[in-house]
């Protein structure tokens, strides 16, 4: 597998859909599917002020890369970019962008969905939701 078909980034900086799209584009690509996660203003009816994202960085990067490699093996895609942000994010800001390109669109849809589903299961990144009256680590306790 050519490693330059995978672009992984873990950063405190603002993510760019343009950069992800440009990375996966190519003359033999017929479709590009992107998932852009955004911070919602509420969880279970409670107003969210902001989110804090914390990562175990070296392992988060290696797990994101594994997802990229798995996706390239599993689906007929050309390239994939997986970018994740850490630090404090406000409502409407973007913690994650995943972009996949393929000759035929179905593979790009499946790859992008698989990648975000897997990221949410395996990549060691944690978010704390901060409300007006407290805070909670998401999904940590029942």
């Amino acid at each position, binding site marked *: 597998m050519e490693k330059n078909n995978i672009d992984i980034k873990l950063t405190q900086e603002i993510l760019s859909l343009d950069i992800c799209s440009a990375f996966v584009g190519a003359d033999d690509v017929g479709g590009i599917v992107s998932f852009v996660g955004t911070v919602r203003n509420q969880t279970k009816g409670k107003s969210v002020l902001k989110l804090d994202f914390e990562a*175990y960085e070296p*392992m988060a990067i290696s797990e994101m890369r594994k997802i990229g490699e798995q996706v390239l093996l599993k689906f007929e895609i050309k390239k994939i970019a997986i970018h994740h942000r850490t630090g404090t994010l406000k409502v409407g800001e973007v*913690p994650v962008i995943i972009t996949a390109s393929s000759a035929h669109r179905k593979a790009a849809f499946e790859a992008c969905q698989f990648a975000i589903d897997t990221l949410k299961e*395996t*990549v*060691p*990144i*944690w978010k704390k939701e901060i409300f007006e009256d407290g805070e909670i680590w998401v999904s*940590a306790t029942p």
Partner: protein
Amino acid sequence: MKVKLLSFGITKEMVGGFEKNMELPSGTSVESFLEILKKEFPALKKLTSLRVAVNEEYVEGSHEIMERDEIVLVPPVSGG
């Protein structure tokens, strides 16, 4: 043997700190290690799940911990 324990997210609060140096009997498995830890920090039992990574890779309960390993507590992840 000496190992380093790193704790992220909610586990950092449950064990009272990000980094701890610990002394373990040689041959300790991840499973036994978790038992020791849960005895010392019962709050860990409240987690929906608790995985362990050693040297940046997820490991099974039967995995044997080695001298100078970096052990990381992985409570339920919530990236994305």
